C-alpha cells in the first residue's frame, strides 16, 4: 500500500501545500464498501475459548474513563480501586490498561494506583472542543504530565482541519508531542465531527505524520462516537503507515462501546484488518466506562455457566 509514499516522510510535511497534496492524494474511501466490510466482520461468531480469550484481551485494553464535570477525587479513587481489582470474586481477572481522567485529577489517580501496572491517561488541550489558544493547550498538557500522566489524549483542532489548515493541525500535534516528554500521545480525531471517511483517513495520516503514538476516534462528547467503519478506516491507516514507514501506531476507539458483543467486534476487526500485531494493550485500546462491567459479567458466565446479573459486579 502507498508504494508512492516518499522514503523520507519529512518530504510530505515540508510545506502546507505538500501536506495538502499528500493528504488529498490518499486513495478515497467508498462509504458503502467500508460499511459493508465492517458489517460483515461484525457477523463473526466468537465462541468458547475464543470468547474467553477475547474477553480477557478486551478488559486488558480498556482505558477506564471518567470525564464528567461532576468528577471528584472520591469518584476517581473509586475508579482506580475498580481498575486494581476489577472483579473481587475473580482475582485472575485482568486489569484495564489505564485510567483516563481530566488533568486536575491525574495526581489523585497516580496516588491511588501506586506502583500497580495501570497507566494514568489524561485528556488535555482544552478537551473536548480544543477551542483555546495553543499556549493554553500546552499548559494543560504540561500540568497533566507534571502530575504524572503516562499518556496524554489530545484533541485536534477540527475547525482548522475542516477549513483545510492542515499545517496548523500538524504543528499543534508536534508541539503537544514535545510537551508530552516521555508520556505517550493519543491524538483524538473526533471523527463524529469530520463527517466523511475520506476526512478520517486524512486526519489519521496527518496525526501519524506529526508524531502521534495512538490515533483515537472520539471524545465521547459529541453525537457520534466510535463506530466500526471509522475504526476500520483507522486500522487500515496504521497498517499502511507501518508498511510505508516501519513505525507502528496504536488505535483507540472511544465512546459508545458498551457491550462484550461490541468489544469483540472491534477485536475481530483489528485481527482481520491490521492483524494480530495490534492485538495488545500496547497498540489497541478501548475508551469506555460501562463496558468493563459487561465484560466481567460475561467472564463470570463463562466461568460458572450462569449469568449472575449486574449486582454481582461492582459499580463505581
Amino acid at each position, binding site marked *: *500500500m*502507498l*508504494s508512492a509514499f516518499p522514503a523520507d516522510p519529512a518530504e510530505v510535511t515540508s510545506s502546507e501545500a505538500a501536506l495538502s497534496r499528500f493528504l488529498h492524494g490518499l*486513495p*478515497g*474511501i*467508498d462509504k*458503502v*464498501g*467500508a460499511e*459493508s*466490510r465492517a458489517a460483515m466482520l461484525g*457477523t*463473526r*461468531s*466468537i*465462541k*468458547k*475459548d*475464543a*470468547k474467553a*480469550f*477475547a474477553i480477557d*484481551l478486551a478488559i486488558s485494553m480498556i482505558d477506564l474513563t471518567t470525564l464528567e464535570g461532576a468528577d471528584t477525587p472520591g469518584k476517581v479513587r473509586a475508579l482506580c480501586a475498580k481498575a486494581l481489582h476489577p472483579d473481587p470474586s475473580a482475582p485472575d481477572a485482568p486489569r484495564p*490498561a489505564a485510567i483516563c481522567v481530566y488533568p486536575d485529577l491525574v495526581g489523585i489517580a497516580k496516588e491511588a494506583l501506586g506502583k*500497580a*501496572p*495501570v*497507566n494514568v491517561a489524561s485528556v488535555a488541550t482544552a478537551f473536548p472542543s480544543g477551542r483555546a489558544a495553543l499556549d493554553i493547550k500546552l499548559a494543560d498538557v504540561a500540568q497533566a504530565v507534571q502530575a504524572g500522566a*503516562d*499518556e496524554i489524549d489530545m484533541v485536534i483542532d477540527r475547525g482548522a482541519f475542516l477549513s483545510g489548515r492542515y499545517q496548523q493541525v500538524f504543528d499543534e500535534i508536534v508541539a503537544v508531542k514535545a510537551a508530552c516528554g516521555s508520556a*505517550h500521545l493519543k491524538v483524538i480525531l473526533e471523527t463524529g465531527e469530520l463527517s466523511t471517511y475520506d476526512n478520517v483517513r486524512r486526519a489519521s495520516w496527518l496525526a501519524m505524520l506529526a508524531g502521534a503514538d495512538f490515533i483515537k476516534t472520539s471524545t465521547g462528547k459529541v453525537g457520534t462516537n466510535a463506530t466500526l467503519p471509522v475504526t476500520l478506516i483507522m486500522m*487500515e491507516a496504521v497498517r499502511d503507515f507501518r508498511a510505508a514507514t516501519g513505525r507502528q501506531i496504536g488505535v483507540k476507539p472511544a465512546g459508545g462501546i458498551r457491550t462484550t458483543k461490541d468489544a469483540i467486534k472491534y*477485536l*475481530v476487526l483489528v*485481527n*482481520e484488518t491490521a492483524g*494480530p*500485531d*495490534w*492485538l*495488545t*494493550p*500496547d*497498540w*489497541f485500546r478501548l475508551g469506555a466506562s460501562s463496558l468493563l462491567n459487561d465484560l466481567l459479567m460475561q467472564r463470570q458466565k463463562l466461568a460458572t455457566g450462569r449469568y449472575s446479573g449486574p449486582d454481582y459486579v461492582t459499580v463505581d
Partner: protein
Amino acid sequence: MSSLSPTPGKAFDYAPAPESRAAVDIAASYGLFIDGKFTEAADGGTLKTVNPATEEVLAEVAVGGAADVDRAVKAARKAFKSWSALPGSERAKYLFRIARLIQEHGRELAVLETLDNGKPIRESRDSDVPLVAAHFFHYAGWADKLGHAGFGPDPKPIGVAAQVIPWNFPLLMLAWKIAPALAAGNTVVLKPAETTPLSALRFAEICVEAGLPAGVVNIVTGAGETGRAVVAHPDVDKVAFTGSTPVGKEIIRTVAGTGKKLTLELGGKAANIVYDDAALDSAIEGIVNGIFFNQGQVCCAGSRLLVQESVAEQVLEMLTRRLGTLRLGDPLDKNTDVGAINSAAQLDRIKNLVAAGDAEGAERWTAPCEIPAKGFWFPPTVFTGVTQAHRIAREEIFGPVLSVLTFRTPAEAVEKANNTPYGLSAGVWTEKGAKALWTAQRLRAGVVWTNTFNRFDPASPFGGFKESGFGREGGRQGLEAYLDV
C-alpha cells in the same frame, strides 16, 4: 508506559462455531413433486445427493423419466386453467404466503442449502435465503399490477413453463424462475440440478403448507436426461434455463421451430476493471467478493481482474494480503468464508483449467489455507501475467480462480473487457463518476456494477449479452419472459 512491554499481540484463533444441523430434517429418500403430491418415479430410478464438504450421502432422490415429465406437464396444464383465471390479487396472496414461509424457515433452508451445495452458511443465511424471500415478495407485489408493467393493459400468461436450474444457487435460481412465472399466471415444471435437489424439494413442501393449488408448481428431479425431457415436452409453452453455455446451445436447437418462448442465462467471464483512482480498499473487497463468493461458482463472477498498470503492483500486494485472511473449511461454520466445491466433476474442471494456466505460463499464487481431508475443495487462487490469449482468460472456470490482466488506458480496459464471447456482468472501480458512466456505457454486459460487485436485488433485471444468453430475470423486465407479449 513502563508497565506495558511493547510486544506484538497473540494470534486470535476463532473457535469452531458451527450452525446446528438439527435445524433440518432430511428424509432418506424423496419422490417427485407432481400435482401437489410426492410420487415415485415411474421406472423407480434414483440418484444420491451428497454433502460436498464431507462426501456423506444426504438422501436418495427420484430420477424423473419421460413418463413422469409427461405427468408433471399434464398436471401443470390442468392447473393452468384455474390458476391463470384467478385475479392477480389472489395469486399474490399465495406468493406472499410463500415468501413469509421462506422467512419463517430461513435458518432451516440456509442449513439445507449449505449441506447440499457446500456454500458457507454465512452466504446461504445472509445472501441466498433473504434474496429468495425478497424475490417472492417482489413478484407477489406485481401479480395484481401486470397491466402497469408496460406490456399492455391486460397481458396474459403464456401457459406451462419448463424451468431448468443450476446447482450454484439452488433455491435462489428456483425463486428467480418460479416467482415471476406464478405472478404472471403461469404454472411450472421445474427441474433442479442433480447435485442440489434438496432445497427445491423442501420448497415443494412449503408450497403445500402455503395451500398452493395442486399442479401449479411441479418439481421433477433428475439429471441431464430429465432436463432434456422437460425442455422437449411438446405441451410446454415456455422454456427458461440457467446453466452452462453448451447446454444452452443444445436447448436452442431443441426448441427451434416449436414456438416455445425461450430465455437463457448462461456462462460468463466478467471483467472487473480497477482504475488507479479507485477506492482501493473497497476495490479489494469487491475483487474478493467478485471471484470468491460461492467459491467462484457464480455465472457473473468477476473472474478477470483488469487492473490499471499504475496500481497493479499495489493492488496485487493488497489482494494477496487480504486473501491470506480468508477462512476455508466447514461450510456450516459461521466464520467460514470459502466453502466446498459443489462436486467432484466441478473440481476436476477447475483443476484442468488451472493446469492449463500453468502450462500456458501464467504465474499461480495460492492462498495459504489448509484443505480438509474429505470433500471437494479448491483454495483461492490468483493467476498473474495472464494475457487475453490464455485459456484462463477466455474460458469460464467456475471456481475460486482469478485471472489478473493489466491495462493502460480506459479505452484499452473496455476493449479487453468486451473481448470475450460472454457478456453477463462487469465491474468498474473508480471514484470518478463520469469515468464510471463512460466505461459502463461501453461495456457489453447485462449487468455493470460500479464500486460494488455481485450485488443482487429483485427489482434489478439480470441477464446477458452474446453467449451469456438472452432474456432478463428480476424487476419489471423479468415479467416479460412469462407474459404473452
